[in-house]
């Protein structure tokens, strides 16, 4: 499920995509993931729609792409990767891992994210 598995980083930037304008990400998955993120001690960015940010060439995408380590919780890694690229901010697969809420159950995604809580204490 990861584009760059085992990306261990002391401070990874977490970005959650709500996919707010379409029903392609199952509601129960995106809610369960958000609830776990919200209940953790993690700092994170939550975007209503990364696709929209890509169309706007939003500078925040540049910032995410420039992070030494980032975890993006959205949809298919191929889609997310080329959305960033289309906005002019290509992702470095060595530094970014993408978790797919369209395919993976919420528990699997949460298992990937929550260990990061300890590194952000």
């Amino acid at each position, binding site marked *: 499920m990861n584009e760059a598995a085992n990306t261990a980083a002391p*401070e990874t*930037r977490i970005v959650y995509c*709500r*996919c*707010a*304008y*379409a029903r*392609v990400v199952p509601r129960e998955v995106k*809610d369960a993931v*958000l*609830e776990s993120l*919200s*209940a953790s*001690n*993690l*700092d*994170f*960015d*939550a*975007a*209503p*729609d990364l*696709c*929209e940010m*890509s*169309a*706007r060439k939003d*500078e*925040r995408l540049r*910032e995410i792409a420039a992070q030494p380590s980032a975890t993006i919780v959205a*949809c*298919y*890694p*191929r*889609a*997310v990767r*080329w*959305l960033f*690229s*289309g906005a002019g901010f290509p992702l470095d697969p060595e530094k970014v891992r993408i978790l797919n809420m*369209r*395919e993976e159950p919420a528990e699997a995604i949460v298992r990937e994210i929550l260990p990061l809580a300890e590194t*952000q204490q």
Partner: protein
Amino acid sequence: MKGGLDLPVLRVALYEGRGARALEPAQRFELLQALLDKGYRVTRVTNGSGAAHSSDGTALAALGRFEDAQPEQAQDGETQVFIRNIEGLSAEQAVGLVEGIRSEAGLREPGGWKPWFPVIDYDRCTNCMQCLSFCLFDVYGASKEGKIQVQNQDNCKTDCPACSRVCPEVAILFPKYRHGPIHGGEIQADDLRREAMKVDISALLGGDIYQALRDRSAKAKSRFSKERDEDRALKERMRCLAKLQDDLDIPAEVFASLPTLEEIQAKAKSAQEKSTAVNGSGAKL
């Protein structure tokens, strides 16, 4: 861009760092859901890790259960910060505060456009320019170097994946499409086989179907058997097209405005000229 997409947006920070009490878990989750579903970008800040601190010229609404009185407005570099205490407020009331800030500051109302547009997988794309030739809505363009690009995302017809069917390399994604591999899922051998048998939608339409439809009532009145045959042939063609429209999942209004063969040829010619003017070689058409 349509929907004021290039206007500044209001971001929201849920501030739970020094000088503020943590939100109750249920309140935090409810507020996050409500803000995101309204189209606001939200950052949770507990330890000042910098998540909300980028001075990117946008406006920021900082919401928190602040222990001390805070100024209503502050400036952080180029970012205008609006500070609001949400102690004792419901999620709905807190969203109301954010909406108030947005409208007072004249910032873009989020939503209003379903972000539906093609995304190119450049690992697969061969720069053949067929998508650019096919799309009549100028969604595609070429870079200065003659490289295919998606340039006018908001010209794309919502829920229409037609150009992805035209791409011979399965290189066009629509991340919000229901099915793979167009939604960005991995490409399987079967997908490639299917794409190899791709139909040329526009050639099938042949550019004359709508004229023929316009003439149809006149023909229907005809007493000549030859014309009745033509009418039957037209009906059969319509039936095939309706099936094709279903198979390709193309909305009816988009299907009705697909380019004719002549239009495609004209666009292909101009794409080639553009590309030749830039790099002297010309796109493969």
